């Protein structure tokens, strides 16, 4: 079937093509269908060239094929002829039938016009009749409409007259929403006719509305109502044209006022914390200030939450309030820590404040309270650390100054020792305490502390570095070595007792050797974290540098002590040598009293030193309890020595200078100015040496007559014994005393020394006198 259908289709297709080419002689369309075999042999193509086709056929095919082709073509041509004949017939038929149809149409149309005229007439009559009905009913309809309007109006009037009652009912049932709706509905009418017809009505309803407003306001202000209800109330009030803004302002003001109640006042802060501790035992939570505070803050944050919902446009204001509260908290905390506060108390307050902040942050997350307070907390903490150190410093200097070191007590009693021990304890205990406190800070688990751990460590390190540095500076100021710039000449160096300087010196040694290593350990153990912080100048706490600083300070202070002491003696000596006219000096009668004063000063030094400084390792034997006998024996031995010296003096008075020069050449140069050590002996020796050197210098500035020289000789001779008693370096003392004698003889116009017996006698007399004096003072 399929094979049969295909040539059928072929044929039909060809027919159609031919037809279409006939009707529409557009070659592009006709060729489009059969373009597949569009070539020279395609007879149907428009570009078919018969001659070419023939040539090609002849060339390509043999005779048989050509004959076959001829037969085929003849058949095809015959077919085409019949097809064309058929087409002509068909078309002709169609043309004839079309002509018939037109003829029929012409006969049908005829007679339609009369019907149309009839229709028009009928419609016209319908219209005139309907107009008649309309005019007859118009008046009645008009009347009905009027009646309807009147009825509406009457209903409204009725509503307005009913309004007060209805409002009252609403008030009773607290259906404020309906009431407001009614009122606002009646509003336009009341506005227009309120002054005339509905005066009473208006008044009554206004009264009712006023009540409603009042109720709404109280509802708005009352904290017991639910937030929803309050928000509704606010919305209703707004609908009633009540100035809500002023209400809002009032409310916020109230809120602001309540801030005062929330403040942690510095004076209350301590009780807040104290009660925190005590009430834990008693469980009296209702009287608990901290609890009260917490509730208050909770209330505050609730209020904020409420207002935020009620007045969405007031956020800024609320933020401001919350920030103000936070800022105030931290301000108060700063005030609070101005007084001394322990770390525990500080933490207590801090915790409360932090809780408050967290509470508020929950309500107002956009206010960035936690950032704000983190910043403030950093500042506060930093201040706290700094303040702890400054308090410690204050403590130490208080301990030092607490004892009124006046001349007598300091020397006689054990006061210096007490001061030293107390201050040592203050330093050591103080640093231990402070680090304990700081450890509490680090252990604290409140959110912000964990973040700031590194910072805190850094602050503590830096703080301790600064602390020791400023402590050193303060020591120097206290000692009068450097005058502090802020109180110019407030304390002149005369008023600072030398003993205090000595204590400070020893304290510096103590800090260098004991305290700083300990602090270093503490920091290494607990506060090393801060190193990760990038400090520009390396780690903040440099124990090596501090040790150096305090070492230098201790030496400086010790030197300063010796200086102040020798200065006193120096003044004494200066007076002694300035006053008399040495060229006209009278025969020496007795040992001059400045010697006593000099020895007294030395004694003071000895006593002070003994209280504060440790004993040296090298120590010459000394019997302090048998003082009296000791001096006499030594003085006797000295007489012998002096005898020798006196003789030599008289013998070679003239070539004295040459002699001393020669002696110096052979004698090993005695080291007068050795380094001072932190021992009792070293300090005393240095003082004595410096004083004797001063004595020599004063002698060199004078010119003596014989008696003047003898006076010096006598005084020096007397000094010899007690000085040697006090000092470890006897050779140096001998040397210096001899130097004084030599200096005096050089400056003497007429060197004749006192005879030894006279010398001895005068010295004995002096000894007896001083013994008697001592005796008198003891007995009195």
């Amino acid at each position, binding site marked *: 079937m399929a094979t049969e259908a295909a040539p059928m289709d072929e044929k039909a297709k060809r027919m159609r093509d031919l037809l279409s080419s006939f009707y529409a002689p557009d070659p592009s369309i006709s060729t489009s269908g059969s373009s597949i075999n569009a070539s020279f042999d395609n007879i149907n193509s428009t570009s078919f060239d018969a001659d070419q086709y023939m040539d090609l056929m002849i060339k390509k095919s043999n005779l048989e094929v050509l004959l076959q082709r001829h037969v085929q073509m003849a058949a095809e041509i015959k077919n085409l002829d019949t097809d064309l004949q058929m087409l002509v017939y068909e078309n002709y038929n169609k043309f004839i039938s079309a002509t018939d149809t037109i003829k029929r149409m012409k006969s049908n149309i005829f007679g339609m016009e009369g019907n149309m005229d009839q229709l028009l007439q009928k419609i016209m009559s319908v219209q005139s009749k309907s107009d008649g009905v309309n005019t007859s009913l118009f008046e009645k309809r008009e009347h009905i409409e009027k009646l309807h309007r009147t009825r509406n109006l009457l209903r409204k009037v009725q509503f307005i007259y009913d309004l007060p009652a209805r409002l009252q009912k609403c008030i009773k049932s607290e259906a404020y929403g309906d009431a407001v709706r009614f009122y606002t509905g009646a509003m336009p009418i009341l506005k227009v006719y309120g002054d005339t017809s509905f005066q009473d009505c208006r008044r009554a309803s206004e009264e009712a509305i006023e009540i409603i407003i009042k109720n709404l306001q109280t509802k708005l202000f009352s904290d017991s109502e639910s937030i929803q209800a309050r928000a509704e109330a606010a919305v209703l009030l707004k609908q009633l044209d009540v100035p809500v803004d002023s209400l809002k302002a009032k409310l916020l003001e109230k809120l602001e006022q309540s801030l005062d109640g929330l403040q942690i006042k510095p004076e209350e802060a301590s009780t807040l914390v104290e009660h925190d501790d005590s009430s834990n035992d008693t469980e009296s939570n209702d009287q608990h200030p901290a609890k009260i505070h917490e509730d208050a803050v909770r209330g505050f944050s609730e209020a904020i939450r409420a207002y935020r919902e009620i007045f969405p446009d007031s956020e800024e204001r609320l933020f401001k309030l919350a920030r103000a509260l936070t800022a105030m908290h931290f301000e108060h905390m700063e005030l609070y820590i101005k007084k001394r506060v322990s770390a525990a108390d500080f933490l207590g307050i801090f915790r409360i404040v932090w809780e408050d902040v967290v509470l508020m942050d929950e309500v107002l997350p956009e206010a960035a309270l936690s950032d704000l307070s983190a910043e403030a907390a950093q500042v506060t903490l930093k201040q706290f650390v700094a303040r702890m150190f400054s308090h410690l410093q204050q403590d130490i200097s208080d301990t030092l100054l607490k004892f009124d070191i006046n001349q007598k007590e300091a020397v006689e009693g054990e006061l210096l020792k007490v001061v030293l021990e107390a201050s040592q304890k203050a330093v050591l205990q103080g640093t231990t305490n402070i680090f304990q406190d700081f450890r509490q800070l680090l252990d604290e688990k409140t959110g912000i502390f964990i973040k700031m751990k590194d910072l805190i460590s850094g602050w503590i390190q830096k703080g301790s570095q600064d602390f020791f540095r400023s402590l050193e500076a303060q020591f120097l100021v206290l000692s009068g070595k450097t*005058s502090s*710039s802020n109180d*110019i*000449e407030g304390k002149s160096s005369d008023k600072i007792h030398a003993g205090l300087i000595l204590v400070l010196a020893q304290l510096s040694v103590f800090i260098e050797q004991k305290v700083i290593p300990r602090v270093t350990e503490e920091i290494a153990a607990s506060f090393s974290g801060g190193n990760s912080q990038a400090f520009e100048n390396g780690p903040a706490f440099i124990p090596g540098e501090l040790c150096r600083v305090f070492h230098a300070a201790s030496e400086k202070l010790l030197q300063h002590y010796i*200086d*102040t002491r*020798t*200065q006193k003696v*120096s003044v004494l000596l*200066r007076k002694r040598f*300035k006053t008399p006219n040495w*060229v006209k000096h009278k025969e020496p009668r007795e040992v001059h009293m400045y010697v006593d004063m000099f020895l007294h000063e030395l004694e003071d030094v000895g006593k002070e030193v003994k209280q504060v400084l440790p004993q040296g390792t090298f120590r010459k034997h000394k019997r302090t309890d048998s003082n009296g006998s000791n001096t006499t024996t030594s003085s006797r031995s000295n007489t012998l020595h002096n005898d020798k010296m006196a003789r030599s003096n008289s013998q070679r008075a003239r070539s004295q*200078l040459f002699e001393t*020069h020669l002696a*110096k050449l052979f004698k090993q*140069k005695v080291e*007068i*100015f050795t380094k001072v050590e932190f021992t009792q002996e070293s300090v005393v020796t240095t003082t004595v040496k*410096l004083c004797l*050197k*001063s004595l020599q*210098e004063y002698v*060199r500035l004078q*010119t003596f007559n014989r008696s003047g020289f003898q006076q010096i000789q006598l005084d020096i001779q007397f000094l010899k014994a007690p000085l040697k008693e006090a000092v470890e370096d006897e050779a140096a003392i001998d040397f210096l005393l001899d130097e004084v004698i030599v200096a005096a003889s*050089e*400056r*003497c*116009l007429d060197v004749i020394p006192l005879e030894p017996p006279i010398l001895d006698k005068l010295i004995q007399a002096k000894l007896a006198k001083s013994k008697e004096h001592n005796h008198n003072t003891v007995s009195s």
Partner: protein
Amino acid sequence: MQGGSSGIGYGLKYQARCISDVKADTDYTSFLTGTLSLKEENEVHLLRLSSGGSELICEGLFSHPNEIWDLASCPFDQRIFSTVFSTGESFGAAIWQIPELYGQLNSPQLERVASLDAHVGKINCVLWWPSGRCDKLISIDEQNLFLWSLDCSKKSAEVLSKDSAGMLHSLSGGAWDPHDVNAVAATGESSVQFWDLRTMKKVNSIEHAHVRGVDYNPKREHILVTAEDESGIHVWDLRKAKVPVQELPGHTHWTWAVKCNPEYDGLILSAGTDSAVNLWFASASSSDDKTSESPVESTRQRVNPLLNSYTDYEDSVYGLAWSSREPWVFASLSYDGRVVIESVKPFLPRI
């Protein structure tokens, strides 16, 4: 810091206290020094540093009637100088002239130009007009200040004006301000006092005890350096004289004399009774600024203002003088009569 014995030494016969730079001698670096001997005949030595700087030559030796407590060379005439002397009982001051052809004389005698006889009392020092040819002199005793007018040709000196400091102050020395020729500082027992020579009135004072030596900084106005018995050396700014600008440790015992270098600002020399001469560098100018600037640097500077310590002396050093011709050279004189000339050149690059 150990002072090596690099110095050039010269021995006087007797003890001595004072040495002075001969400022007017522009050809040689010379110093004048005088002995202090109560009983022997005292001498004035004119010393000259050889051109190679390796030797100290005694250019002239003159006898002086009394022991010399102070000696100052005239700034404009190298042959003129002043001395303060003591006879044992009383003090006096005189202006002397070295004879012109002293080299050719056997035993040249000093010519006395003038004696400041009108000044009785324990004279401490004579100050010359700080620079240039001016015939003004100042003599200071324990209580008084005299301003003199000297006439070399007439060989006379007249008192122009005087003022008393009062009994209690007991002045001990002084210095003439090179920047303000009307200002003179005098050291007293409890203060340094300043006089205005035009009115001859005390104008100012620094309350500071036991000042021994005083010197103006010749390179910088208003800066004054003092040496004290116990407390070392202080540098003051006279415009704010309450607190010293800088403090130097000084000497182990008293600091006796202090001299600012005439050429190198901040270079200070001090002599002490601990038989040492110390060379300091005091950045006095702006020590305050520096501390604020960088603490590290200032501590370093504070640690070591001492450039060198010359310790090669047997006795206390009282005499000290910079050479104005060769400002890196100074002369020091210890009590045993030893003059030592040292050069600070090795320390100059460090400034």
